[in-house]
């Protein structure tokens, strides 16, 4: 364990972490339960890597989401950046329309959209998976669900990328770019909210503007904070998950064969691949008071990353964690986090992933990574992605 708060993470380690996070976090756990990293997160951020410690911290009110990240904003994003009792009140508005029984109703829509995308490249015998499937499938599903026009997807993807992975020569330039995009998105969301209040509509935003909890409706600022968070979540995480799943399946014909032989294998495969790949690799918190992790003291106000990836890959929690075993039982993973901040979109994500695997393998049961190509991994903003991912299959 390092006792310095500012040891930079060498670039080679960043690349290793994205490419082979199982090996990377195995080495980190061997060094100690807490690491201090300065890149790519703010200096002095503590990273909890011991699996049981991550699990406990997810359920410990010594850690708060409040004030963790700003994405170029002055207001919090809701609900991640708020604590109970406000958090509990917001989830009372947000959870009912996003619960499991509501999300499964989207299955036919998602299946039709997946088939439309597959129609576009099936006869070509290959595709660039990230831009031709992994971005548009969850992207257009989210817009349809939320009540946003489909033609706004490029704007929303640009917004998401600009606030989550800011570019610019200096930190000041990055900051001003983030702020500019955050402001444009806030104006856009305020316009959508005004329209939903006027027109209603059978979509999430229509339900959010009319929902009442204890006789009260959400205000415009709160709704903008919610739209901001849900758009970031809805456009990035399932894209990342699809890329990681298809990279694995393209390289492992024996696992693909299990899905092709028995569609009932898809749901356990989704859970195991969520655990093994853990696309959202960490969640950000800040300590509300002085605390300790397995004997390592953390002061009050300490920025902390809880490594969900490491928790899902810790042999103390999962035997043979590097092995993808669709029959793994029990499979008590925390790919959607845990405690009060459990991913609001988890039920949507599962319906999307199951529909995508089912429809794709029905039509393209066998495929491989295009010869001579290596999958290109990144894990900026604690989301692990593969792009580009060139796949190839036989058309005979």
């Amino acid at each position, binding site marked *: 364990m390092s006792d310095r708060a500012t040891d930079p993470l060498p670039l080679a380690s960043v690349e290793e972490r994205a490419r082979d996070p199982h090996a990377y976090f195995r080495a980190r756990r061997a060094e100690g339960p807490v690491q201090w990293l300065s890149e790519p997160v703010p200096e002095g951020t503590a990273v909890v890597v011991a699996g049981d410690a991550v699990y406990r911290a997810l359920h410990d009110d010594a850690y708060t989401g409040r004030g963790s990240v700003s994405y170029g904003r002055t207001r919090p994003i809701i609900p991640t950046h708020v604590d109970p009792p406000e958090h509990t009140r917001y989830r009372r508005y947000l959870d009912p329309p996003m619960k499991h029984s509501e999300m499964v109703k989207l299955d036919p829509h998602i299946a039709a959209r997946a088939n439309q995308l597959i129609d576009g490249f099936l006869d070509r015998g290959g595709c660039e998976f990230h831009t031709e499937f992994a971005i548009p499938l969850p992207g257009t599903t989210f817009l349809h669900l939320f009540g946003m026009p489909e033609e706004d997807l490029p704007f929303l993807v640009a917004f998401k990328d600009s606030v989550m992975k800011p570019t610019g020569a200096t930190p000041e330039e990055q900051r001003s770019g983030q702020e500019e995009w955050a402001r444009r998105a806030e104006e856009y969301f305020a316009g959508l909210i005004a329209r939903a209040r006027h027109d209603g509509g059978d979509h999430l935003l229509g339900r959010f503007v009319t929902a009442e909890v204890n006789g009260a409706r959400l205000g415009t600022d709160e709704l903008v904070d919610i739209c901001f968070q849900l758009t970031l979540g809805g456009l990035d995480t399932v894209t990342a998950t699809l890329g990681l799943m298809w990279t694995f399946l393209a390289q492992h014909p024996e696992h693909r064969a299990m899905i092709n032989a028995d569609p009932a294998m898809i749901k356990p495969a989704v859970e195991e691949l969520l655990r093994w790949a853990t696309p959202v690799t960490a969640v950000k918190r800040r300590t509300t008071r002085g605390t300790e992790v397995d004997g390592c003291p953390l002061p009050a106000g300490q920025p902390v990353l809880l490594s969900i990836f490491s928790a899902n890959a810790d042999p103390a929690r999962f035997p043979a964690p590097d092995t993808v075993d669709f029959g793994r039982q*029990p499979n008590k993973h925390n790919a959607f986090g845990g405690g009060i901040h459990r991913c609001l979109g988890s039920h949507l994500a599962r319906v999307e992933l199951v529909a995508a695997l089912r429809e794709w393998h029905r039509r393209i049961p066998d495929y491989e990574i295009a010869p001579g190509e290596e999958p290109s991994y990144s894990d900026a903003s604690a989301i692990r992605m593969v792009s580009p991912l060139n796949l190839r299959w036989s058309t005979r």
Partner: protein
Amino acid sequence: MRLEVDAARCAGHGRCYAMFPDLFDEDEVGHAIAYPDELAPADLDGARVAVGNCPETAIRLAP
């Protein structure tokens, strides 16, 4: 044996009711409810899987 869900721990992952709709239901916010019936012998294995999978350690088998 019966299944019990600790409402204070459940965070609405839905692993239990999605996999075992005969043993659990979702409430209005998507948190889990265990059906109160005595478990049939044929349901015991599934019940144990649900207990083991719960990401919040919120489910238990009660005598």
